């Protein structure tokens, strides 16, 4: 579907940007291959471009070596590619994890992990939506009405009334004009960024952003400037430097969009972005602020409306907010919200929106019910905050560990206190703690990163996710188990 949209995107970009001469070249080549009457028809328009094409292809031919057929055949014979994939050793921790750490129950507050009942401190089920019977009942009702899959993208009969309701309710809850749902949490921000930020544009981005944002930025092919994690002074430094450049090239500045991309609550660090200060910079330097609230949505603010509510910043001042529905709401997919003119643009240019089948209606229904629950029981969020603060306080007293993250954050990172350890050895110790905790009936998880692919690899840690339904006894037990495991691992 729309197999050509990307090509057209290239074409549009090529016309807009002077640097995109390669894209231009490809586009023109496609035109060149059209039937001759097309050419005749369009010749007047593209004559000068054809000239360009001609010189290009000419010069590339000149560069080519002249080889005899024999030599060519030999070269084909001789070339040996690298293997497609390397061998992964059998003791690779991720492999072992996928093969042997298997859950055969709901991923609720308690899980059955390898046949043993464990208290779940690992999955991002902050509001305990996974395991709520009301949600399952409604999802099943929806399944009996719509089946499982939607069998098509939104444009081609994949829009089900449930999706429309979901978008409306999300927009209403967040207090924005419009919302758009994606069928995968990861794809939301990763598709939204390249929908606006193009080659030639510039993105200022926090170093600590999650992988989805990193991929979105990469797909946009814009220029990226990274500032130190949550360091607004560093950001301002970059901004003044850039303002300097702008003054030198006013013409370019007039067509260069500037984006500021941050996370509301950083999943990799458990801290909140300094939104008020960022707003100030946004207005001062005329930046578009995109914020991913995958963790903060449903967990921060008095009623779970996220970072804007937490800081009491008008939500309309943030240009675009995205969030995953896979965490607090315990469903599937993601959404973006903002002004209509912002959101509407994605309906034709968000790759993950246009080119992928829509969310199974039953899962959208689950998100709707979960959202209603969140709206009608605001004490869920209070309980979550209380639990986060409690665990934070207790865990920071465990010797040998350092707790990283804000006290309101439902995501806590437990790092080893001695920070000079090698990564591999720290990881091994953390894994050992997780293993011991599991034996004691507490499911933990070492935060998983692709070490070769992350731009800025966060330090190794155990990532703890707080659940609003935990009671004091359970939390005390968690602390106790971690304490024991820590002690045991440092002795061994």
């Amino acid at each position: 579907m729309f197999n050509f949209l990307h090509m057209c995107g290239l074409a549009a970009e090529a016309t807009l940007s002077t640097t995109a001469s390669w894209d231009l070249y490809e586009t023109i080549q496609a035109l060149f291959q059209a039937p001759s009457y097309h050419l005749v028809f369009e010749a007047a328009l593209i004559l000068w471009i054809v000239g360009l094409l001609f010189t290009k292809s000419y010069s590339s031919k000149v560069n080519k070596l002249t080889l005899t057929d024999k030599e060519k055949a030999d070269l084909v014979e001789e070339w040996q590619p690298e293997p497609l994939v390397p061998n992964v050793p059998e003791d690779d921790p991720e492999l072992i994890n996928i093969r042997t750490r298997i859950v055969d129950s709901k991923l609720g507050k308690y899980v059955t992990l390898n046949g043993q009942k464990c208290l779940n401190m690992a999955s991002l089920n902050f509001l305990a939506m996974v395991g709520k019977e009301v949600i399952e009942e409604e999802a099943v009702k929806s399944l009996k009405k719509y089946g499982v899959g939607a069998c098509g993208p939104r444009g081609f009969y994949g829009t089900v009334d449930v999706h429309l309701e979901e978008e409306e309710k999300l927009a209403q809850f967040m207090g924005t004009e419009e919302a758009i749902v994606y069928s995968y949490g990861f794809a939301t921000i990763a598709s939204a960024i390249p929908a606006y930020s193009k080659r030639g544009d510039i993105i200022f981005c926090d170093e600590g952003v999650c992988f989805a944002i990193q991929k979105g930025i990469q797909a946009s092919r814009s220029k990226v400037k990274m500032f130190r994690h949550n360091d607004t002074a560093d950001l301002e430094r970059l901004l003044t430097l850039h303002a300097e450049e702008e003054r030198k090239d006013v013409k370019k500045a007039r067509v260069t969009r500037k984006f500021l991309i941050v996370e509301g609550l950083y999943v990799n660090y458990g801290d909140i972005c300094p939104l008020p200060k960022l707003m100030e910079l946004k207005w001062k330097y005329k930046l578009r602020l995109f914020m991913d609230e995958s963790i903060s949505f449903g967990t921060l603010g008095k009623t779970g409306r996220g970072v804007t509510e937490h800081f009491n910043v008008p939500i309309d001042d943030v240009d675009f907010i995205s969030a995953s529905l896979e965490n607090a709401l315990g469903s599937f997919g993601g959404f973006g919200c903002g002004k209509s003119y912002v959101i509407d643009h994605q309906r034709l240019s968000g790759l993950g929106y246009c080119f992928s089948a829509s969310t199974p209606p039953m899962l959208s229904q689950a998100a709707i019910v979960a959202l209603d629950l969140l709206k009608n029981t605001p004490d869920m969020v209070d309980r979550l905050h209380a639990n986060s603060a409690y665990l934070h306080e207790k865990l920071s007293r465990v010797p040998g560990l350092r707790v990283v993250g804000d006290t309101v954050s439902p995501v806590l990172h437990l790092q080893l206190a001695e920070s000079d350890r090698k990564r591999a050895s720290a990881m091994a110790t953390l894994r050992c703690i997780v293993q011991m905790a599991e034996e004691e009936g507490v499911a933990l998880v070492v935060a998983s990163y692709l070490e070769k692919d992350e731009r800025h690899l966060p330090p190794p840690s155990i990532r703890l996710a707080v659940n609003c339904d935990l009671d004091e006894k359970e939390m005390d037990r968690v602390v106790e188990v971690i304490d024991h495991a820590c002690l045991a691992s440092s002795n061994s």
Partner: protein
Amino acid sequence: MEKGERLDKNENKNNCSLRNGLIPNSNYQNHYLSREKGDGPFVLTHEEQALKASAATSDHDENVDSSEEEPQHEIVEFFEETPLWVAILTYLGYAILILFGHFRDVLRNWKLEKAPVAAEPNKEGWVPLYQSFESFYTRNLYMRIRDCWNRPICSVPGAEFNLMDRETPDHGWTFKFTGGTTKAMNMGSYNYLGFAQTEGLCADAAVEATHKYGCGMCSSRHELGNMDIHTELEELLANFLGVEDCMTFGMGFATNSMNIPIFVNKGCLVLSDELNHASLVLGARLSGATIKVFKHGDVADLEQKLRDAVIYGQARTHRPYRKILILVEGIYSMEGSIVMLPEVIALKKKYKAYLFLDEAHSIGALGPNGRGVVDYFGCDPKDVDILMGTFTKSFGAAGGYIAGTKTLVDYVRHRSHSACYATSMPAPVAQQIITSTKIIMGLDGTDDGSKRRGQLAWNCRYFRRRLHEMGFIIFGNKDSPVVPVLLYCPAKIAAFSRECLQRGLATVVVGFPATPIIESRARFCLSASHTKEMIDKALAIIDEVGDRLSLKYSSMPVPQFSEKDEDFKKR
């Protein structure tokens, strides 16, 4: 259309210039590509000999029960040049639309006409969030006919569905729901095997899985999102596909875009079909590898580019490429064409390249056992290095898979972006796939799966043959369930869609930029849930609308194939 008229057009044909490239089989002889598998009437080239050899080895595939089942099909792909006068009229249509667009933009600028759409307030010193240039097309061409897309439904997307009625008081700028619904025949959803069902084995199993596992996961595969249901699904699929191992993901699009970058990177070459899906293009782009595009379905062009790449190496440095990955799809969803897999396999063997095959539309829908193009051509799945597919189509679920050798899949498990950072597949969805796969494989103890396949195969041939006989220009392989009917003129896009819907047939229409500018088309997706009566009804509607809009452009002889030889599949 009358015979006489068709003849007239035949004469016209000589005036048509032939299209070089862009679409395969570009010269007239090849338009009508018909080749006997095995001993064809042509002299065999090297590739074809290699192809024969590979076909011969694949006969030993242990999972194919007997040689009688070996499909004895000819490979027939259709493509017809745009008639010259149609092309001129189409360009004229666009010219008028663009002229009017500019005129109305002027009016809007002078505030004589109001555009009831949310626009960015003009703020001093801010660069517009997106170029108004980008939205000229949207504003002036797309808006007028926006009612043909995003039509909301309020029932299961089965053989028939209910559309929510909407009306637009301002020609497409805004829509209001009237509250009513319209029942229509569904030829728009990718429900190839008819598994979009609210009852039956699949639905029952999915309900049970919802009760057992809940809806959400809140964790990734590298962390705690590993359920026994995933293991079961992956074992079953590996078995179904005839490979060693398999891994599944929550979204088909992301299966491509988040996994291709782990196979290739800088210093590697990706050879990508020009009509590849956006997810493949994005994946290739994210990988950082050099990307070269070959003409759609054109094996000769692919060979040329492969050969050049191996001989000359990387541009400028001439260092040899580290590896070369060919990206192709099984069935192309806009063309209805099927990749010439045996030839591509022969090429990739000859030049030691690797092959990534996206079976999004073909898995389940093609082949005597439903195992996609690999099965359709009787190839060995082990000859394809990376098998990819999605569950949104034939399985009536969501998500995608990567399958291949154990080494490959272990590496995917270890390194996939999706496995590490994205939430794993929800249990009800996984269960839907498990049950539908079991039905396809016949493990449910009934012949439901083979009946569905038989019905779909029959529907494809029958529907396509009848459309050819009516004189429409349609593209693609005779066995492909995706049937594009060419409309050309921009005005006919909306007219066709609306007229069909009025008569109770919902279909997909696509124009630029999803297709080349003059090749706007309607697309029908056939399903095993369509009965012959439904297909006949749909054909009658298409016939009538085709006459009203004079869409019967074809001047080629009606191809000779029939649905009769599909009978063996019905069993």
